[in-house]
């Protein structure tokens, strides 16, 4: 891989969940997560609630400070080597809740123009640019520019949020469940917009979603997270075609089939995901894994390379390697 545009190095983030002294509880939201993003690629991130997807996103754009580990942009450590202000204009984020992410007292044109004016762009230039961007995301600036957030539908608001993210001409956009709250027909429109923008501007996306269909559609590579750790990461095609972690297999098997003749007959996993406050020892998935064996409950599985830029953290792969 060429120099990664953005990379995460052993990110760790724990949250306090109450209690003092020995009884202190800690949510291990993100534990030792590392990955790299090549320029122009889209990395899909999937996992169930509480797996650390959103915390990873927030660490990545520096909305949260990691307990340890670092984020690098084009090889430079953000903070010491690259000032935050410069970083922010390169890496932007779009959130799930389109309404909560817009200031209710700002018109849409002001919302899009606000960021650049803070960064020193003149008011008139920023407004002109905002008009172009609204137009680009499919909202007529004359009609929608003067409206407030509550006067738009969910799909329209999410378009404004995308326009706002684009106002800095960023290289990377982190999309945290950005289309999940939208109705299906509107979701398809916004996905099309995202794919068009990616092609036009050579954007790099981190696309976080719980919808495996959508992630497969838009992503070049996919990262599967489980209880704050990376279970598997690899090219979308090989990860969906030949998953190398039992959790990835289970997630894929849990997708509704869409074929009336091939309905799902058996649930791949029993029970709910465990609480990230007190994750299981060894491989965190071993309590729900049908194929757990000797080392799973005690040893943390290392990352096994199972294919071209395809890595899975599962002890079963060591067995496979020995057999081969």
């Amino acid at each position, binding site marked *: 891989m060429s120099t990664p545009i953005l990379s995460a190095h052993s990110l760790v983030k724990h949250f306090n969940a109450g209690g003092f002294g020995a009884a202190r509880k800690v949510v291990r939201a993100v534990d030792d997560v590392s990955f790299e993003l090549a320029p122009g690629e889209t990395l899909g991130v999937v996992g*169930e*609630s509480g797996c650390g997807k959103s915390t990873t996103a927030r660490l990545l754009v520096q909305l949260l400070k990691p307990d340890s580990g670092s984020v690098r942009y084009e090889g430079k450590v953000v903070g010491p080597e690259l000032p935050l202000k410069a970083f922010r204009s390169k890496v932007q984020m779009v959130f799930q809740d389109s309404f909560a992410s817009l200031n209710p007292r700002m018109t849409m044109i002001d919302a899009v123009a606000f960021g650049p004016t803070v960064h020193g762009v003149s008011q008139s230039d920023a407004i002109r640019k905002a008009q172009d961007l609204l137009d680009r995301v499919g909202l007529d600036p004359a009609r929608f520019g003067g409206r407030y957030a509550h006067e738009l*539908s969910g*799909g329209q608001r999410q378009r404004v949020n995308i326009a706002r993210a684009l106002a800095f001409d960023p290289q990377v956009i982190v999309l945290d469940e950005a289309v999940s709250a939208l*109705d*299906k*027909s*509107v*979701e*398809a*429109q916004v*996905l*099309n917009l995202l*794919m*068009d923008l990616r092609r036009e501007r050579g954007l790099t996306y981190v696309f976080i979603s*719980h919808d*495996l*269909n*959508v992630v*497969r*559609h*838009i992503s070049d590579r996919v990262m599967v997270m489980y209880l704050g750790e990376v279970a598997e990461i690899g090219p*979308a*095609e090989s990860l969906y075609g030949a998953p190398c972690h039992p959790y990835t297999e*289970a*997630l894929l*098997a*849990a*997708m*509704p*089939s*869409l*074929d*009336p*003749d091939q*309905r*799902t*007959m*058996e*649930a*791949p*996993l*029993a*029970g*709910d*995901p465990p609480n990230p406050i007190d994750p299981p020892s060894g491989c965190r998935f071993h309590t729900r894994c049908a194929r757990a064996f000797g080392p799973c409950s005690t040893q943390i599985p290392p990352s096994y390379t199972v294919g071209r830029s395809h890595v899975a953290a599962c002890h079963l792969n060591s067995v496979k390697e020995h057999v081969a």
Partner: protein
Amino acid sequence: MTSGFSQSDMSLIRVRDLSVRFAGTPPVHAVNSVSFDLAPGEVLGILGESGSGKSVTLKTLLRLLPERKATITGTVEIDGQDVLSLTGRGLADHRGGIVSMIFQDPSLALDPVYTIGQQIAESVIRHEGASKQDAMARALEMLELVRIPSAKQRLENYPHEMSGGMRQRAMIALALACRPKLLLADEPTTALDATVQIQILLLLRELQQEMGMGVIFVTHDIGVAVEVSDRLAVMYAGSFVETGSVKDVIRDARHPYSKGLLAANLVGAVPGTRLDAVPGAPPPLNALPEGCAFAPRCAVAEDLCLVSPVPLWSDGENRWARCVHAKREAARKDRMGAGN
């Protein structure tokens, strides 16, 4: 299987020309002349986006809408009973006895200050006049039926002591405690994680077959609808626009909106390619256009589409679509079939 419109004495549900208006200026037309039948033991999936009237239709069957605000017209018969004329005790017997409902958010549907066991027992005592002891025994039986591990201890749990998937199971146990003939499910798996969602779907499917009850399953997720339904109805702007067996609707959708919905669910899409997205957004329900409500977003709309009523195409059995083009296309196919 019953047809969309055929008269059948066997129907569990018979809905004709059901319309629901909510007071306002102008009034909101939430449901517009919906008609359907449901056979005993049949599962109907209602598919639609937010604001399409799916939940309002369900709530009408249980008479859960606020009486002062909602004007309901048409007929609704469930198990031979005229639901719209029910009052007092009759209505109370209907709710939970004949028809039960499960919701998207079990933490709102369950009472936080009573244990799961108490809540299930209460419903059994009310509907079947059972003793407290018998009712508790039934509650335990129900928790075992929905496969809650260590059910005996769980009887004593309050809703907040359970995980999301477990609460959903408890709500299903509560809904089924009095062996209803009809279960209404309003997006019961939408808030759940993928691996838990499939567990609940399979559980519902199994219980439905075991108990032989009719189910109406409302969802916006085509995949979920396919997993549980025998028949599908696609809803748009308060109307049913297409119904048919799951296979027919998924493989050979006739209404342009159904087709758009399938494309948006990435059915058969090649990764990375642009999607065949339906433009625009649904019309506001207090200002529905004349004619077909989907016409303003439809790629093949024409002048004929702007005239009410929209013609109905039906294959004479249990498959129909309300669209000018569906009717024409079917006629063309018939001609071609005759030519061969």
